Every structure is written in C-alpha cells, then in structure tokens.
C-alpha cells in the first residue's frame, strides 16, 4: 500500500516538527522567538489535520492560529515588553515540581492510550467535509453555533474594555 507508506512518513515528519517546535516554544529565552516557533508548530499541526482528512480544519488552523493568534500575541508582547528581549521568557522556581507533575500526567495518559481498545471504524471519511460540517452546524448544533457567536462578541467587547484604561 503505497499511499499508507507516504501517509505514515508524513505523520512522523509532522510529529517530529510539532514536538521539536513545541519544545523550542517552551525552552527558548527570547519570547519573540518562542512565538515564531509557535507559528511553525501551528502550521505543521495544519499538515497533521490534512493527514486526518480534515481539510477545512487545516485551513482554519492556518487562518486563526498561525495567522490571527500569533500576530495578536506578538502585538501584545510589543505593547508590554520595553527592555531588551534577551531574557524575557525564563523559568520560575517550580521547574522540578512541574517536571514531576508532567511526568505523572504523561505516564497516566500514555498507559491509558496504550491499554485502551479503540473501536476502529473501517469506513473512510467522506470527501465533502465542509458541507457536512455546515449541515451539522446549522441543524443539530445550531444553538452551540449561536452561543459561540455570542461568546466571540462578548470576548471582543470585553477585551476592548479591559485593555482600554477605565478612568475611575
């Protein structure tokens, strides 16, 4: 199966890129570099979604995460960091405790995902992803869809009011 081989090759390449860039996001000392690697991580996650037959979500990932979220975080950094950027992303004193907690979480999730018997459906994902998503969104899940719209509006207004200085 030639296609499966290419798919697993793509998976391993993308997984290596995702994990490597995520490590760099956490480990680099300059926060602007961290955000740059965050963008790399998001774009390779979009590639991973393509291997999962989710083309619409890959497009959304590039648009919202790699585009909007990264740019917004960079703007936020430019508004709050005045001094030099070299030592802006340091570790605090609880690094060892954090490593212990993370090792515990990783052990539990790894064990559970290795043990669980996943029910594996053999049918392929339909080609029409956007149409199916739109149909679900406007029929069965129309109330969560509207609530998400209200949430975005409230977040927009709230962000403006919080970031704007309120003269008391």
């Amino acid at each position, binding site marked *: *199966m030639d296609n499966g081989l290419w798919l697993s090759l793509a998976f391993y390449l993308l997984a290596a890129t995702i994990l490597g860039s995520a490590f760099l996001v956490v480990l680099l000392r300059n926060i602007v570099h961290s955000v740059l690697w965050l963008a790399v991580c998001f774009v390779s996650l979009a590639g991973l979604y393509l*291997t999962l*037959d989710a083309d619409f979500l890959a497009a959304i990932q590039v648009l919202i995460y790699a585009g909007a979220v990264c740019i917004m975080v960079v703007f*936020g950094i430019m*508004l709050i960091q005045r001094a030099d950027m070299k030592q802006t992303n*340091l570790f605090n004193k*609880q690094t060892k405790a954090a490593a212990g907690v*993370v090792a515990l979480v*990783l052990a539990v999730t790894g064990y559970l995902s290795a043990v669980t018997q996943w029910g594996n459906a053999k049918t392929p994902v339909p080609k029409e992803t956007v149409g199916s998503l739109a149909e679900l969104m406007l029929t069965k899940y129309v109330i969560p869809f509207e609530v998400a719209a209200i949430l975005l509006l409230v977040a927009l207004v709230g*962000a403006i009011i919080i970031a704007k200085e309120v003269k008391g």
Partner: protein
Amino acid sequence: MLPLTVGLTHYVVLSALLFAIGLFGVLSKRNAVAVLICIELMLNAVNINLIAFSKYITPTLFIGQLFAVFVITVAAAEVGVGLAIIIAIYRNRLSVNLDDFDWLKW
C-alpha cells in the same frame, strides 16, 4: 510494513506529548504571555485528539471535527481576553512576571 502503519494510538500519543509540553510550560514559565501560548499548545493537543477520534471512530458523523471548530473559537476568545488582562495588569504593575502577582495572598 506493520510497525510503520499509523493508527489512532499514534495520534493519541502525539497529542499526549504535546499536551505534556504545554503543561510543563504553563507550570514553569515566569512570563504571563508565555503561559498563554503554552495554553494554546494544550488546546491544540486536544484538537488533535478530537479530529483523530472523528476519523478513526466516527468517520461519517463529523462530531469530532465540529467540536474542534468550537474549541478553536473558544481558544481565540481566550487569547483576546487573556492578552487584554495582561496588558491591563502591566499598566498597573509594570511587570508581566507571574511571581509578582500575589495580591490575593495574605
């Protein structure tokens, strides 16, 4: 051939690793913006899980993909409000170091 075949377990393990990296960053970073972007990493790990379940367990229902869309929406709102809060705190305290924010401690 068999060990190279990618299945649901591979995606779940990748997601667990990404979530662990994000959790480590959230717990151990000093800069508030760094904590925010590590939370984004964790939310993306959740999205990998949802989309992989959608492909391998319920391929025709699309509920996992739909849920991932909602997760992305909430994450975008969270980044906006989180950055606004950080900017407001910086204006009062001239710092984004989370160790300085201990007003509620007594």
